[in-house]
C-alpha cells in the first residue's frame, strides 16, 4: 500500500519534470524525485544505496545543474515602473506585453528571469548587470539593451512586428560601459 503510493508519486514526478517549460522548475522537481526515490530504496531494504542517492541525487546534481544554468541560459530582465508595485501575476495579466515577451524568450530556449526593481531606472542602468531593462511609464515603454547582443536584435524584431501600437523606445548601450558590472 505504502509502496504503491510512493511508486505512483515517482512516475508522476518524472513525467512532470520532463514536460516543464522552465528549467528551474525541473531542477526543483528532480530534487523531490530523488528524495522520494531514496525513500523507496529504504523500503526495499537497501540503506547504502539510499545514502548514495541522497548525496549524489539530492545535492551534487542540484549544484551541477545550477552551475550549468548560470553559465548558459539565464536571461535577466529588470523591470521598473512608475506606479506602485503589484502582484507579479496581476502585473502580467494587466500588461500582455510582458507575458508575450516572456513566451517569446522561452520559445527561443532562453531562461527569462524577470526582476521587479523598486529603484529608479538610472540606478539599475548604472549598477546592475542586466540583459534587458524595461522602464514602463504611463504612455511610453523604454527598453535598454546591449548593443552587440544578438538576442536583443531578435527581441527588437519581435517587438516591432507584434507590438507596434505601443510607444516603444529601444535604446542600445555600448558594451563595457553599462553591461559589465
Amino acid at each position, binding site marked *: 500500500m505504502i509502496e504503491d503510493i510512493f511508486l505512483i508519486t515517482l512516475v508522476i514526478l518524472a513525467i512532470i519534470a520532463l514536460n516543464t517549460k522552465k528549467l528551474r522548475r525541473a531542477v526543483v522537481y528532480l530534487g523531490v524525485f530523488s528524495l522520494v526515490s531514496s525513500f523507496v530504496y529504504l523500503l526495499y531494504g537497501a540503506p547504502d544505496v539510499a545514502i548514495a542517492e541522497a548525496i549524489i541525487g539530492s545535492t551534487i546534481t542540484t549544484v551541477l545543474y545550477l552551475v550549468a544554468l548560470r553559465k548558459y541560459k539565464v536571461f535577466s530582465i529588470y523591470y521598473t515602473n512608475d506606479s506602485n*508595485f*503589484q*502582484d*507579479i501575476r*496581476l502585473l502580467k495579466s494587466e500588461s500582455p506585453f510582458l507575458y508575450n515577451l516572456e513566451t517569446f524568450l522561452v520559445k527561443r530556449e532562453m531562461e527569462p528571469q524577470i*526582476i*521587479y*526593481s*523598486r529603484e529608479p531606472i538610472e540606478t539599475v542602468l548604472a549598477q546592475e548587470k542586466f540583459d534587458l531593462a524595461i522602464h514602463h511609464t504611463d504612455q511610453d515603454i523604454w527598453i535598454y539593451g546591449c548593443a552587440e547582443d544578438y538576442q536583443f536584435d531578435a527581441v527588437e524584431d519581435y517587438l516591432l512586428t507584434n507590438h507596434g501600437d505601443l510607444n516603444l523606445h529601444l535604446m542600445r548601450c555600448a558594451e563595457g560601459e553599462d553591461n559589465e558590472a
Partner: protein
Amino acid sequence: MIDFLAYLLIVIALIFMSLGVIGLFRFKDFYSRILISSKIETVGFLTIMIGFIILSGLSYAAMKILLITILVMITNPLSTHAIARSAFLSGYTINQETRL
C-alpha cells in the same frame, strides 16, 4: 501507560501537520503560506520526535533521534528564511486588495 503518552503525542503531531497542509491550500499568497507552513511544520516535527523518543525508550537509537531533532530544529528555520529572503529580494510583493 508510557506508550499511551507517546501515542497521544504522535496523534497531536499528526493533527498539527494536517493543519499545516490545510494552510498551504487555504491562503492565497506566498508570504501567508510560508508563515503558516514553516511554523506549524516545525512544531509538528518537534512533537512527533518527542513521541518517538518516548516510544523507543532509553537506548542508543533515542540519542540518535534526539541528535536529528536538534539538527532539524536548527536547519529548518534557516532554510525557510532563505526562501523568504529570496522572494523578498527578487521583488515579490502582494496585492493589498486581495490579501486575506
